[in-house]
């Protein structure tokens, strides 16, 4: 029976997703972490904008003293660098949801003890408490898995400092599987950049010269400058070969002094 005659209504399903391209990259160093992304947002073959922000710095208030030390600080060392890549509407929604959770968590942690119960705070500590990276990561898992059957179509990467002050990167699949890693790329350029990072960050397939490929090159932490070079190389390379990556590169660096950001132009073609 032809579908036009109404006996069998034609199923026209609304597609609630789109692919907005782009690439997201996180590297953890010894006492710092980097989260970087390109700033292009596209759909099909159209560039929506050359300056969109896929990374949000979720930070406690930046104090005047911190600003004095360096003017370009955009977050404290207790910040969570939150990046999403994929379907941008879901990315924005997830970022907003996490931010909300983060704010309430920090608020609850720091809210004063009820009058008459001060003895509970034995040492009378005034220390401010923040959300640790591992707690942030677990919370993101819950947010993602909460929509297991109508997923947020995004690859999520968090970067920050762990409770020992070491750099850390957490990466998530769309439904909340996650892992702490030294480095991770998400999004359109992931397949191009990931092997490069295996090679240059974790020294995969590198052996000590003269040992006839019997002794692996030992893994060691890279310096911040080395990491930034890798990030820029990775993005210029993937810009060359992937159509949805380009326009600009936004890099966030978190260390004991706080968060600062860099912007570099990428090719606009």
């Amino acid at each position: 029976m032809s579908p036009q005659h109404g006996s069998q209504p034609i199923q026209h399903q609304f597609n609630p997703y789109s692919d907005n391209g782009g690439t997201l990259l996180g590297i953890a160093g010894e006492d710092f972490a980097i989260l970087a992304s390109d700033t292009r947002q596209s759909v099909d073959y159209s560039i929506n904008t050359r300056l969109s922000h896929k990374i949000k710095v979720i930070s406690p208030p930046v104090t005047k003293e911190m600003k004095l030390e360096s003017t370009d600080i955009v977050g404290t060392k207790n910040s969570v660098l939150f990046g999403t890549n994929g379907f941008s509407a879901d990315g924005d929604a997830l970022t907003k949801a996490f931010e909300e959770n983060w704010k309430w968590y920090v608020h609850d942690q720091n809210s004063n003890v009820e009058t008459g119960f001060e003895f509970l705070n034995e040492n009378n500590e005034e220390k401010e408490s923040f959300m640790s990276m591992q707690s942030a990561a677990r919370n993101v898992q819950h947010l993602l898995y909460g929509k297991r059957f109508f997923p947020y179509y995004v690859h999520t990467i968090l970067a920050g400092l762990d409770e020992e002050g070491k750099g850390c990167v957490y990466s998530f699949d769309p439904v909340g599987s996650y892992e702490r890693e030294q480095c991770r790329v998400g999004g359109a350029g992931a397949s191009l950049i990931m092997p490069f990072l295996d090679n240059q960050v974790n020294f995969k397939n590198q052996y000590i010269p003269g040992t006839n490929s019997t002794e692996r090159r030992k893994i060691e932490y890279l310096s911040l400058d080395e990491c930034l070079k890798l990030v820029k190389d990775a993005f210029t390379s993937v810009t060359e070969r992937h159509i949805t990556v380009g326009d600009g590169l936004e890099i966030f660096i978190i260390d004991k002094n706080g968060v600062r950001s860099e912007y570099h132009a990428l090719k606009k073609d």
Partner: protein
Amino acid sequence: MSQQDPSTINGGIVVAMTGKDCVAIACDLRLGSQSLGVANNFEKIHQYGKVFIGFTGLATDALTLSADLKYKHNLYKLKENRGIQPEVFANLISSTLYEKRFGPYFSTPVVAGLSEKTGEPYVAGFDCIGCIDAARDFIVAGTASDQLFGMCEALYEPNLESEDLFETISQALLNAADRDAISGWGAAVYMITKDKVTKTYLKTRQD
């Protein structure tokens, strides 16, 4: 199982790079049937005189195409009484593939060689219906072509000496293969210079 992409059943990759008076071409050694590994000695690079061609894609088509090109290369030698130039071979491959425009071989070859007259390195790649991509830097092909593109674009620089080119192409191949479940299981690198060709097997992960 009923509908599958023929070009990703067997798995495997090939990459070629130009250097200073030298050219290199490399491949992995795996032959698989989807996720099942079948052989770890499946060399994808074949030699025709001084021209080297790597075949990725559907293994049966790669072999058929290779045999057809061997036949055509022999006829060429018989007719012309000389070896074939890489650029000429590239055009021969192109027309061979295009003959099957509407029922193509599911193979994407890569050519590498030195031009006899000028000594210039030559590399070229194709899609499965014969469109030539004569790049001046590098050519990648196979199931980990995305990974190879990323590696090559980041590691490659022009006019490398043969020792450095060897290291570059090897690292590009190895790290790309390690991020592809159906590539790897050994690797071979050919380094082609004016007066010698060396073939090196690389140590790779075996998973």
